C-alpha cells in the first residue's frame, strides 16, 4: 500500500515539475542553512569532556581589596589562595592552571624560535582532564616540589620539532632555559579550551579565540614561575594598581584557576564547606574582604562565561527562523497543489477512498518532497560547512557534520515537510465528493 502511495506521489510530483522543484528547493535551502548553523552550534556548545564534565568543579573566591572592584566571586585566584586550596588536597584530584606564551627552540639547533602558547599547571591536570599521551607521561608530584625543569609538549609541536619521533628525554629551550621533555601528547582538541575560559565573560560575544587548539607546551607551574619575570604572564586583574609588584606569588592579582574533581553530591557539599571555611579564616586574618564563594561545575562555568560566540548563537536563531519561513512557503505551495487536484481527489473519494486514505496519500507526497529536500539540503549543509571551515575563525576546523547531525538533517527535512503537509492534506481530505464529480 505504501509503495502504491509512493508511486502516486511520484506521479503527482512529476506532473508539475516547476512547482515540485520550487518546494524541494525551499525545503533544501531551509535545511541547508539551518543545519549548517545548528551543526556549528552543536559542535561549539557540546560537552567538551563527556562523562567526566559532571565531576569537574571550578572553585571561586573573592579576595579583592577594596571591595568596590568586584561584588561577587572573581573568575581567577591569586597565587596564595590558589596554592592554599590546591595544597590542601581536599578533592579527589586538583590542578592549577595559568597560561602564557613562550618561545621554543631546540638547543644548538640554530633555528629561530617558535612562539607557542604555554600552560602552567600541576601534575594531576593530565589524568583529571583525560589528556591522552603518545609517548612518556606527565611529570610527578615530586618534580613539582623540586621545581624540576620538565615539560610536556603537544603532538603538533613534536611533529614540528622532532618529525613525530619519540622525543621523551630530549631537551627543549623555552625562553632560553632548558627543560627536559617528560611526555608527548596525542592529538588533543578540547573545544572549547574549557579549562581556561574566564576571559569569555569580558569578550562580549567575541569568543571564538576560546576555541583555538590546546596549548603546545605544558610546564609545572612552580618551574614556570622560576622562568618568567613578574607580570609576564597574562593576568585576570589586579586590585591594587600602583603598588610595587615584585613577584607573581605575592601580586595582588588574580591569574590562576583551580580545578577540582569531586564525585558525588556528598563530596561536593564537603568541598563547598571546606571552601567557605577557608574564606572565613582568610577574612579573619584580614586578607579577604568579600566572603562569597561559588563552586560551578564545568558546564555551568562554560555557560556562565558565554563561551559560545554571540555571532554563532544569533546565526543559529536566524537559521531556525529561516527554516520556519521555508516551511510556511512549502505549506502554501502544497495547499495550492492539493486543492488544484480537488477533482481527482473527488473521484478517488467517490470510488471508495476514505478521508484517512486521501490524507495519507497527500502526506506521503509531502514526505517524498521532504526526503528530496533533505538530500539537496544535506549537500547544501556540506557546502555551508565547507564555507565555515574557510573562515578565519579559531573554531573553523571543528565545523564537520557528525553522525547525529547527519541523521538529524534527514529527520528534520522529513519531519518538517510532514508538518508542512498536515494542514494541506487535511484540507484535501475534506474535499466534498459530489461537487467535484459534477465538475468533471
Amino acid at each position: 500500500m505504501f509503495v502504491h502511495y509512493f508511486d502516486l506521489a511520484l506521479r503527482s510530483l512529476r506532473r508539475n515539475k516547476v512547482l515540485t522543484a520550487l518546494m524541494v528547493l525551499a525545503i533544501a535551502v531551509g535545511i541547508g542553512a539551518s543545519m549548517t548553523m545548528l551543526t556549528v552550534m552543536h559542535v561549539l556548545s557540546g560537552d567538551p569532556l563527556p562523562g567526566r564534565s559532571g565531576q569537574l568543579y571550578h572553585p571561586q573566591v573573592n579576595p579583592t581589596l577594596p571591595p568596590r572592584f568586584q561584588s561577587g566571586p572573581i573568575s581567577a585566584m591569586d597565587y596564595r589562595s590558589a596554592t592554599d586550596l590546591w595544597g590542601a588536597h581536599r578533592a579527589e584530584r586538583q590542578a592549577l592552571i595559568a597560561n602564557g606564551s613562550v618561545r621554543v627552540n631546540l638547543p644548538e639547533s640554530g633555528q629561530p624560535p617558535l612562539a607557542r602558547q604555554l600552560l602552567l599547571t600541576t601534575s594531576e591536570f593530565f589524568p583529571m582532564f583525560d589528556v591522552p599521551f603518545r609517548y612518556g607521561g606527565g611529570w610527578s608530584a615530586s618534580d613539582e616540589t623540586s621545581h624540576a625543569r620538565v615539560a610536556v609538549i603537544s603532538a603538533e609541536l613534536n611533529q614540528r620539532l622532532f618529525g613525530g619521533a619519540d622525543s621523551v628525554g630530549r631537551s627543549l629551550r623555552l625562553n632560553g632555559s632548558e627543560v627536559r621533555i617528560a611526555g608527548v601528547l596525542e592529538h588533543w582538541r578540547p573545544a572549547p579550551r574549557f579549562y581556561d575560559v574566564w576571559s569569555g565573560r569580558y569578550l562580549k560575544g567575541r569568543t571564538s579565540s576560546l576555541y583555538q587548539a590546546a596549548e603546545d607546551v605544558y610546564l609545572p607551574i612552580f618551574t614556570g614561575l622560576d622562568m618568567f619575570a613578574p607580570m609576564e604572564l597574562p593576568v585576570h586583574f589586579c586590585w591594587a594598581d600602583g603598588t610595587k609588584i615584585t613577584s607573581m606569588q605575592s601580586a595582588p592579582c588574580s591569574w590562576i584557576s583551580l580545578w577540582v574533581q569531586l564525585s558525588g553530591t556528598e563530596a561536593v557539599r564537603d568541598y563547598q564547606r571546606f571552601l567557605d571555611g577557608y574564606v572565613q579564616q582568610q577574612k579573619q586574618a584580614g586578607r579577604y574582604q568579600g566572603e562569597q564563594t561559588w563552586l560551578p561545575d564545568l558546564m555551568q562555568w562554560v555557560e556562565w562565561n558565554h563561551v559560545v560566540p554571540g555571532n554563532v548563537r544569533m546565526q543559529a536563531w536566524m537559521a531556525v527562523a529561516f527554516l520556519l519561513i521555508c516551511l510556511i512557503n512549502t505549506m502554501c505551495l502544497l495547499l495550492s497543489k492539493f486543492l488544484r487536484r480537488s477533482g481527482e481527489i473527488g473521484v478517488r473519494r467517490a470510488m471508495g477512498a476514505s478521508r484517512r486514505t486521501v490524507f495519507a496519500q497527500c502526506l506521503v507526497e509531502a514526505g517524498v518532497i521532504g526526503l528530496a529536500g533533505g538530500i539537496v539540503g544535506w549537500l547544501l549543509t556540506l557546502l555551508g560547512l565547507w564555507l565555515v571551515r574557510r573562515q578565519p575563525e579559531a573554531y573553523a576546523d571543528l565545523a564537520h557534520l557528525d553522525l547525529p547531525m547527519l541523521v538529524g538533517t534527514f529527520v528534520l527535512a522529513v519531519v518538517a515537510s510532514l508538518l508542512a503537509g498536515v494542514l494541506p492534506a487535511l484540507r484535501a481530505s475534506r474535499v466534498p465528493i459530489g461537487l467535484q464529480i459534477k465538475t468533471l
Partner: protein
Amino acid sequence: MHPIIAALKHHKTTVALVALEIALTCAIVTNALFLVGDRTSAMRLPTGVADNELVWVQTTGLDIGDNEQRPDNRDADLAALRAMPGVQSVAMSNSLPLSSGYMSTGAFRRSGDEKDLLDNVVEYLGSSGMLKTLGIKLVAGRDFLPQEHVDYSPFGLKEIPPPTVVIVTQSMAAQMWPGENPLGKTFWLDHEGKKPVQVVGVAERLLNPSINKYQGVDRGMILPVTKVNGGKYVLRVRPEMRDAVKLAIPDVLKRVDPLRMVEAHIYTDSIADYYHGDRAMVWLLLVVTGCLLALTALGVVGLSSFWVQQRSRSIGIRRAIGATRRDILRYFQWENLLIVSAGIVLGSLAAVGLNLWLMQHYELARMPLAWLASGAVVLWLLGQLAVLGPAMRAAAVPPRRGDPIMNNHPRCRSPLAGDAFAVFNSRMAGHPGSKASPASGLLQGVGGFEKE
C-alpha cells in the same frame, strides 16, 4: 464588502499562510537590515588617529629567563626606526585604538574619595611625540612638554608616581565635568586616588583599544611617559611607503638586537582585523536577507501562478463581459498589495518584538520605528514584482465563449466571479460563494449571454 476581499475569503488558509510568511520575512528582514546598518556605522567610527599613515611594531626579547638584565634598546630602536626612509616620526605607546589590549583605571574627582570617581577610564601611555606621530587632534590646550614625560608604569616593578599632567578626550571631559571647561582641572589617580594630575589638553577623539560596555567608545586619557613597558613602536609613514617600511622593520630592529622577535603591522590591517567578526556578520545577514526575499518571492510567484491557472475560467468570463486586460492586471496587483500589507502590519509588530528580544540578548540598540518603513517598502516592491509575471499571464487569458461547465455548476467557487458580480450587482442579487440559487442564476445568465 469589496469584491477582492470577498474573493480572498474563499482562500482563508492560503491567504493567512502567505500573510504569515510575509510577516515573518518582514520581521526578520527589518531587523537584519537594522543590524547591518548598526554594524556598518560602528565600523565607520573614526579612530581619532591618522589611520592610513601608521605602522606599528611589537618586539619581545628572547632570553628573559637566563638573562634578566636585558639591555634597554629602546632609544637605539627609536633612532634606527626614525632613520628609515619614508618614516616621518616615531613614538612609543602602550596601545592603539582598536588594538584590543588596554589598561583602564578610575579617575577620582576628589582626592581619595571613592564615591566620587569616574571608573573604567582607558589609559594611553605615550612617549614624547605620541600625539604628533599618531595624528591626535587637540581641541583645547597643548601637547605635553618634553620634560613632563616621566618613567612611569602602572604595574611596574618600581614604585614611581604617575605624571602630573594629562590629556583627556572630549567625551571623558564631558562625563567627568559635565558642562565645564576641563582645561586646568585636576583629578586623582592610583587605587587610592591620591596622585593628582592636571588636564593640559583636550583631544578631539581617541577611540578605545576595545569598544565594550565597560569603557565605552572613547572615554580615555593620555599620560606622558618616557618609556612604555611591553609597548608598541608607532611609526608615522607616508601612505605609499607603508608596505616597504613594514617589510624592512624586522631587519632594522634586529641590527640593534638580534635576539628578539619583531612583528610589524600596517595599522589599517589591524583595524580590519578588529572588525573581522562584524564584517562576516554583515555579509551573512545580507546573504540571509537575500535568500529570504528570494524565497518569499518564489512563494508568491508559485501561489499567484496557481491562482491564475485556477481562475482562468473566471478571467475568461470577466473578459467576455467587458473587463479589459488592464482590469485583470490591476485585480491581481491589488490582491497582492492587500495580502502583503496585511503581512506587513503583522510583521511590523513582530519586528518590534524581535528587536526587543535582540536588545535583551545581544546588547543591540533600539530600532528606530523608521526602519519599519524600510522593511515595508522592500516587501511591497517584492510582492508587486513577484505578482507581475502571473498577473500578466492572467491578463493574457482570452475572453471566454461557450463554456460547457458553467451550465449547472451549483456553487461558484471561483473568486474572480466575485468581481463578475460587482459588474452585475445592479441587476442581480447574490453573493459569491453563497449556496443560494442566485449564483447559479447568474451563471446560467452568463451562459445565456454566451449562447448569443
